[in-house]
């Protein structure tokens, strides 16, 4: 009987071939990376993608997004190709899944900051806003979707940063900021920005009412912030009124009473604005109520910073550390007093020995 041929040579050949291929892969991998930098990127038509997804629109949107994600920061030799590809991806991903929040927000950041194309960013955001506004109206639950708040905020910022020079577009910032402030999940920073810009436009009464209403909010932290912001708004209005008075009268106001009655503000507004404001001997406005609230706010911020330090290091920070750290610095103590951190993390004023 003939012996079966030895398997030694085929096995050796197999191992050798695999080893050689593996050795070649290192250099091939490098050339692949170079080629892929400018590989043709095909973005399917949104309608076709809907059909091809076979009902799995969200998954296909995710797959396209994951495929494109590294390309946002990758260098392309052909920048036009990169722009077309990524715009196509944003278009298709948000068509397949109109609730794809990350695509809207991340895409907006790319289009504005990296690609300097606020027009496309604005179009993208308006697309998302249109969809979410429609579904909120259909469901009859305004304020339900935090994404809609975020989109309005982003759109306001896009107009503010890139379109403020265009007089026709200027109101768009305030329009979208105004929408955000009316939504229940509006954050403090956005409220403050809206408030400041609105006062610049002369919307004093509206802004004062806005903060006044929040001083009665059920959340005490929101109440506290609202009181503080209300005083800041009063300060801004008071300074503006002082400057307008000086320009009109040709001299600075002699007293707070004169500013109150000068007619540059509505009577009831003037009463509210100048309550808690004094004037010193040199004619400078002294914002007594604001100073008290800011003192308290800074003290609380310093206590919070100390609490964070304690949770990280298991001990309370020294006052020297707190005074050097801008986020933890307590307010300037009155003369003859200094701050001391108690064992339960509260800051208290003690007389300097």
């Amino acid at each position, binding site marked *: 009987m003939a012996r079966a041929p030895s398997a030694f040579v085929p096995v050796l050949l197999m191992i050798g071939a695999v080893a050689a291929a593996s050795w070649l892969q290192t250099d091939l991998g490098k050339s692949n990376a170079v080629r892929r930098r400018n590989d043709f990127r095909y973005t399917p038509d949104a*309608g*076709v993608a*809907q*059909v091809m*997804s*076979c*009902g*799995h*629109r*969200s*998954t296909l949107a*995710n797959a396209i*997004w*994951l495929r494109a*994600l590294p390309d946002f920061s990758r260098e392309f030799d052909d920048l036009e190709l990169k722009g077309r590809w990524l715009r196509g991806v944003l278009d298709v991903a948000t068509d397949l*899944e109109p*609730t*794809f*929040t*990350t695509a809207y927000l*991340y895409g907006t950041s790319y289009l504005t900051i990296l690609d300097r194309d606020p027009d496309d960013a604005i179009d993208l955001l308006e697309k998302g806003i249109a969809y979410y506004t429609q*579904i909120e109206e259909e*469901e009859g639950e305004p304020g339900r*979707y935090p*994404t809609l708040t975020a989109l309005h905020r982003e759109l306001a910022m896009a107009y503010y940063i890139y379109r403020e020079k265009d007089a026709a577009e200027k109101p768009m910032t305030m329009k979208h900021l105004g929408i955000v402030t009316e939504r229940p999940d509006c954050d403090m920073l956005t409220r403050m920005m809206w408030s400041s810009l609105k006062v610049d436009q002369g919307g004093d009464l509206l802004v004062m009412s806005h903060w006044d209403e929040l001083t009665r909010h059920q959340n005490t932290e929101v109440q506290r912030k609202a009181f503080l912001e209300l005083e800041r708004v009063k300060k801004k209005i008071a300074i503006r009124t002082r400057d307008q008075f000086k320009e009109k009268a040709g001299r600075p106001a002699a007293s707070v009473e004169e500013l109150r009655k000068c007619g540059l503000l509505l009577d009831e507004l003037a009463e509210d604005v100048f309550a808690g404001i004094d004037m010193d001997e040199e004619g400078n406005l002294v914002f007594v109520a604001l100073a008290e609230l800011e003192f308290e706010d800074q003290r609380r911020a310093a206590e919070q910073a100390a609490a964070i330090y304690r949770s990280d290091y298991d001990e309370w920070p020294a006052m020297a550390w707190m005074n050097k750290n801008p986020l933890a610095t307590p307010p300037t103590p009155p003369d003859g007093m200094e701050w001391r951190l108690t064992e339960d993390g509260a800051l208290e004023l003690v007389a300097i020995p």
Partner: protein
Amino acid sequence: MMQRVGAVAQATFREAVRDRLLLLVVAFAVGMVLFSRVLGWLSVEDEMKMMQDFSLTGISLLSVFLAMLVGAGALAREVERRTVYTVLTRTATRGHFIVGKFFGLVGVFWLCLLGCALILGVWAWIWGGMEWMRAVSPAMTAAVLGLLVESVVLTAVALFLGALASPAIASVGTFVFYLVGHGTEAMRELTIGGRSPEFEQVFAVLYRILPNLENLNFINATTSGRPVDWSALGMGSVYAILWTIAFLAGAVVLFRRRQF
């Protein structure tokens, strides 16, 4: 009659559960569910969204693969092995046989789908926590229920095609049915206001008569945050049952006329 159908269903169930092909397909789906977490890590944000979407797509593919690979060949295997004669020589009719097969296959497919859904639930709880689970569980439940009902239709289609043609053709046909069923809604949107009003009219008719599996598709709604439209799921289920009855009736008619 119920006893005969039940006996066939039980036998089908026991046989299908031991099928290695079924285990392979389930392993694929479980792998996709577990791997979806890796895809979540690749994303900038929306980790749980990626996980959810890819996992539910994996479970949906499990449903169609089970119908294609196990369901489409179920009748042919019985004929090939001559075991069908054993059943039909008793008092069970061909109709009882088909219906029993259907229930047996649906039973085993539901077991697989629910098993995968449970794994997804545990996996999502591990990575998303209880709060996330509470937020998405109504939508996930609706999506899984939709997939379960869809598997009923697909099983009926697979049996119908299996009675009509060879297992390979039945398998491909089941997959095409799945594609068409999920594509009609998107095709309708594409044709409305398109360049060809004639095609729009033709498709409007086709849209009414082609089975539409999108009525049961709640996967895309799981990450939108929108409330679940349970009445739509209910109506979609009724619609699916009507198509199931149609295909099963067709399968019975075809099987009665088959010579073997």
